[in-house]
């Protein structure tokens, strides 16, 4: 029995090797892949499954996903690994890390790996808004994967109580303020028991602020990523609108509003409208005990939101064969069907229009219309703030915004100071 089994096993192995027509197992390409987790849900499991499915379809390539913490941890680990020559083959990092990675000479442009017309057509198939943060100097450095935008969530019950139509969210800045005024409630002692609107300002206020600046038709940086426009009058105007919501109109909580507890404030009915990422869609759907609506951010001079989230990057310390294998995986992960499923599972916006044409996505959107809001808003979305020395230049803006919000500096002075600081940091990159 034993001998027969061994014989059968040996024969089938020989057959398999013969069929493969090449020294199969020995030639397997191993790829290490760093990925962060930034939203709730079983992301790690989804990524592992994706890698396993890819392995089944491509037995010569083995992708090993390595969970590396938050986005911040992941870039820190990647750059540290790079400095000790232990680079992963590819990673998901913030789209805004592009200039940093270029400056560190860490990544290779994706264009080099595009060989056929079909490859190029695939790259052109992503939403333009997402490509803005992935291209500079005529090259494409990142491939959009888990991307998001900001949307407005509102409590339909509270709208009804305030005499507003729950099916009509505010469409512009004036309406947003007027609605917020109706939605703010105070008790006899003058303490506010319910706020009209909340725009988080802890951690990365620049991102939410970019919603306001985009709506006010002003860019915060140039395409080359070496100049910022923080002191533009339209930027100051956008900041003044935000500051006025709390200090002048008193419809927005005073001081810095915590990003992390904002959804909870919404669930507790402490706030009637909130701005937050589409990545919170699943969270809100599961935890809001009242009917809620999702809408595009209200328009100032125009509709607008920044994009956010992570791209795939391919590292330089790889062989040509490895790069091709990475490319195969990236194409696999961004196929319409898989991009659609990823969007449904996580709440991220599917990165390609053709993903929204798939049956499974159409069915999902029909059942859950808020899923389409982010997609519709993409027409008006601009690139997230990203420059050389990104963290520092962004920090200059964050500090200025927080100073204006807490009232230590007037909006204009705060933005002028932020601009001076950013200009000083970026000077070496303007040569």
């Amino acid at each position: 029995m034993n001998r027969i089994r061994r014989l059968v096993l040996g024969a089938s192995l020989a057959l398999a090797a013969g069929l493969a027509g090449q020294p199969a197992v020995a030639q397997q390409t191993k790829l290490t892949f760093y990925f962060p987790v930034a939203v709730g849900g079983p992301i790690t499991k989804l990524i592992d499954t994706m890698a396993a499915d890819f392995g089944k379809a491509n037995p010569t390539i083995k992708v090993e996903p390595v969970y590396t913490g938050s986005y911040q941890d992941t870039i820190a680990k990647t750059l540290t690994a790079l400095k000790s020559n232990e680079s992963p083959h590819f990673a998901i990092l913030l789209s805004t890390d592009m200039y940093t990675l270029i400056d560190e000479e860490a990544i290779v442009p994706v264009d080099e790996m595009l060989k056929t017309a079909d490859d190029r057509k695939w790259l052109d198939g992503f939403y333009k808004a997402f490509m803005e943060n992935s291209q500079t100097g005529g090259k494409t450095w990142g491939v959009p994967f888990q991307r998001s935008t900001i949307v407005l969530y509102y409590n339909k019950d509270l709208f009804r109580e305030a005499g507003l139509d729950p099916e009509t969210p505010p469409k512009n800045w004036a309406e947003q303020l007027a609605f917020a005024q109706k939605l703010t409630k105070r008790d006899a002692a003058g303490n506010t028991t319910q706020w009209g609107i909340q725009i988080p300002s802890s951690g990365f206020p620049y991102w939410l602020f970019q919603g306001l600046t985009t709506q006010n038709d002003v860019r915060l940086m140039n395409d080359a990523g070496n100049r910022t426009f923080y002191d533009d009058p339209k930027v100051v105007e956008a900041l003044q609108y935000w500051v006025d919501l709390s200090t002048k109109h008193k419809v927005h909580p005073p001081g810095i509003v915590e990003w992390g507890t904002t959804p909870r404030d919404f669930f507790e009915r402490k706030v009637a409208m909130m701005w937050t990422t589409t990545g919170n869609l699943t969270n809100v759907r599961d935890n809001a005990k009242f009917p809620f609506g999702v809408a595009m951010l209200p328009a100032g001079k125009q509709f607008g939101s920044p994009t956010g989230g992570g791209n795939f990057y391919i590292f330089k310390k790889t062989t040509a064969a490895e790069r091709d294998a990475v490319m195969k995986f990236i194409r696999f992960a961004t196929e319409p069907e898989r991009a659609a499923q990823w969007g449904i599972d996580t709440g991220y916006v599917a990165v390609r229009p053709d993903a929204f044409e798939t049956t499974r996505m159409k069915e999902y959107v029909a059942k859950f219309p808020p899923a389409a809001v982010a997609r519709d808003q993409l027409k008006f979305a601009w690139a997230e703030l990203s420059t050389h020395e990104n963290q520092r230049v962004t920090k200059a803006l964050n500090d200025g915004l927080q100073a204006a919000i807490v009232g230590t500096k007037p909006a204009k002075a705060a933005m002028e100071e932020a601009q001076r600081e950013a200009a000083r940091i970026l000077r070496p990159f303007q040569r």
Partner: protein
Amino acid sequence: MSRAKATIYGWLLLLPAFVLLLAFTHWPAVATLHASLYSTPKRNRPSVFVGLENFEGMVDDPVFWQAMYNNLLYALGTIPASVALALLMALWVNEKLAGQAWLRLAYFTPTVLPMIAVANIWLFFYTPDYGLIDQIVRAFGFGATNWLGNPDTVLYCMMVMTVWKEAGFFMIFYLAALQQMSPNLAEAAAIEGCGRWTFFRRVTLPLLMPTTLFVLVNAVIGAFRLVDHIVALTGGGPNNASHLLLSYIFDVAFRYWDTAYGAALTVVLLAILGGTALFQFLVLEKRIHYR
């Protein structure tokens, strides 16, 4: 055993600790000092010797001064409070009480919890309006306060949390010292007709001084070393109002990747810590009575 043999034996016993200390404490410190005198390597611009330029940059860096000021205030606010509270708690749980073990455990719990977990709990304590603190305050007729979102309150919020976290840890040392104190002393004092306060001031406190020195050294190090909660709760905001020296160093070195400047800042931190430790051991120790 001959003298030479004993010496070798002694050194061999010391060797493992010595190697570890050298590799993970002294060598990095020296390497940091070295790195602080060079510029950060950038593309096309390799690292060059710049002398004290990194330190000169600090003079014009408002965030550095803010972090220094914050850290000083933070140390002044947390060290005396946590040491005093630790002593009080130790005296309390050293008495014979019902549920003494549970009380000790309760006081020690904050120390056992990881700082990041603690920070997430406190985030909801400090949440405006429906957070625990605001709910209590509301019972007395006050409105909501944005504790962490206001530059005037954020640092004090961090201090309260730190005192809560550290006091239990220091209590253990005081408790151990109190348990070792001979009951004869209390009996003798009672015969002499000594009051409780006088006994505490004249007998207990002096006998606890060696423990106090140890606790103080730890508290000072803690005030400069513990920044997990800053990173988790505020990231140094709003507008740097809660940045401490170490959280700023982390930002400079691992967010901005300005490693040379980060090294220079680390040298300053090392100097501060080394200086206070020396002061405590050389000056304060002379005033302490050991049995």
